[in-house]
């Protein structure tokens, strides 16, 4: 509980509100959206902003606002799934690698090195290409592409913890290998993994959009921002709002995640004090004394 409180203090209200807003929309979107996001109505196609359809309609007469809301749901659902999968598998590999060491560690880390040295989108694109474009294939592909980061992260924490006195004493006390791994090493790594994941969510959201934009992720008619944008691209001249709105939604969401990640990183390991900050701090200190 205290950890959450500290986190909230470090992140600040505006960022929490921003991310909370998107999560709220994603969860309760079904009740909020004025129309069915996939319902077509050609009689009301290509309307601009108006009272009936607030953000207008697309070329098939689908309500843009409803589709934007559904897009938030798709993106956040995808991000959560990928993070869960990649986090679990990555932690498993990292723990094995860090705990056993030796040649297992050597081989696993070489493979992880490769995964880290090649951009994730390239790996994900190749995997989707082999298994076919589809929402679930995209999720699995991204999860595979994201495993190395979490494996590396976990391995670092576990390898550092394994030789600590408290693990040593557990072994002396007769704790089994499974008990040490599950009850003591995994929780130690879980913190770093969760923190990294919160910062990583933005990058993932961008990549889901990238793949969907290329027609290799979320398939129409399911609403997703990248896919909405590519569908609207031919009408850029007549209806730029159909391109701008999904792009803007995605940008704002990713800004939220990135600010969150930055705030957490700053709280975890504050920047060395620059001269300017030093002066500022000194002034505050003087004010405190004067008061």
């Amino acid at each position: 509980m205290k950890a959450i409180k500290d986190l909230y203090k470090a992140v600040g209200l505006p960022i929490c509100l921003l991310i909370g807003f998107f999560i709220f929309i994603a969860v309760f979107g079904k009740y909020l959206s004025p129309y069915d996001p996939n319902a077509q109505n050609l009689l009301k196609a290509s309307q601009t902003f108006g009272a009936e359809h607030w953000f207008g309609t697309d070329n098939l007469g689908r309500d843009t606002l409803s589709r934007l809301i559904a897009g938030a749901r798709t993106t956040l659902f995808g991000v959560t799934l990928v993070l869960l999968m990649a986090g679990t598998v990555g932690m498993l590999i990292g723990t094995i690698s860090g705990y056993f060491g030796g040649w297992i560690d050597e081989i696993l880390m070489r493979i992880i090195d490769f995964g880290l040295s090649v951009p994730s989108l390239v790996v994900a694109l190749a995997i989707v290409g082999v298994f076919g474009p589809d929402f679930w294939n995209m999720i699995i592909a991204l999860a595979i592409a994201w495993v190395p980061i979490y494996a590396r992260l976990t391995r670092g924490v576990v390898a550092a913890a394994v030789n600590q006195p408290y693990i040593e004493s557990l072994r002396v006390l007769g704790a089994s290998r499974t008990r040490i791994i599950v009850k003591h090493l995994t929780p130690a790594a879980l913190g770093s993994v969760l923190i990294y994941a919160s910062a990583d969510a933005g990058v993932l959201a961008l990549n889901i959009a990238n793949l969907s934009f290329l027609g290799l992720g979320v398939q129409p008619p399911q609403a997703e921002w990248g896919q909405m944008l590519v569908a609207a691209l031919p009408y850029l001249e007549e209806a730029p709002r159909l391109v701008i709105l999904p792009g803007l939604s995605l940008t704002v969401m990713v800004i939220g995640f990135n600010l969150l990640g930055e705030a957490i990183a700053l709280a975890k390991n504050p920047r060395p004090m620059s001269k300017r900050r030093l002066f500022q701090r000194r002034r505050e200190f003087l004010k405190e004394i004067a008061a």
Partner: protein
Amino acid sequence: MLRIALNRAMSALVLVVIASVFSFILVAAFPGNVAALIAELRGGFVSQAVVDKVAEEYRLHDPLLYRYGYWVADVMHGDLGKSLRTGEEVSKAIEKRLEPTLVMIAGGGIVMLVVGLVLSFCGAMWPGGVIDRFIRMLAVVNISIPKFFLAAMLIYAFGVMMNLLPTFGFRGPSSWILPSIAIGLVPGALLSRVARVSLEETMSRPFVITAMSKGFGRRRILFRDALPNIVPVVLTAFGMNLAFMIQSAIVIEPIFAWQGIGAYFVDAARFRDLPVLQSCLLLFSVLFIIVNLVVDLLVMVVDPLQRRAMRG
């Protein structure tokens, strides 16, 4: 020095080998009957005899290890197989499509360097000023903006509204401008931040205070004294971002309808063109590994501190 460089090259070589294994396994793991798929793509009546013939041709009955060996030997000879869709030789197609991608990455590199250095030096000239704060804000916004959205907005602003620049196709230098900006702007903002932070750090070192007390102006100190100090950091960041541009090209090329290798990769993924997919994955991985290696070696040569640390 040489030993460390060789060591670095060796580990890059190991990565290349793993890349080749990965590229191979991925296609070998194709769900379903590859031979049947190929036979189907070739058109005509698909019978068991045809499927068997295809399997024979692609050596699909051989053990995996043998197939990997054959494949590596072929790749070494520059034979990447033929596209399943068009029947074109993959190596020839890649050769033809290399030019647009290289132009885009070169243009993006220039944009990145200009944007990054100009912004960071302006920020360092007037620390805490409007530009300084603007850079900080811009960096967050810029890493959050989807590349395809940025490209679409550039097309809208310069192509549709002002009607200044061509937005479609690879036709001469004027059509190179928008893609270069689209691919280079985000890395430029990242670079500006890296350069700005290391400039700030350099400007708080004692030798800068000495120079100030000698009465030199801020501009002179920035360019004559601080600039050489941030070169290794900027070079590393530049190289890393340049490598990542190879990835961005995948998304940007289709928007501007450029026939580069990024677009080739996407097409292959769309149509399950296995040999092309395999070759592209290998090509991108190897390119990425090589760029990173070259940057590491360059920094080794440029940075006197690293050189001294290695000698000692």
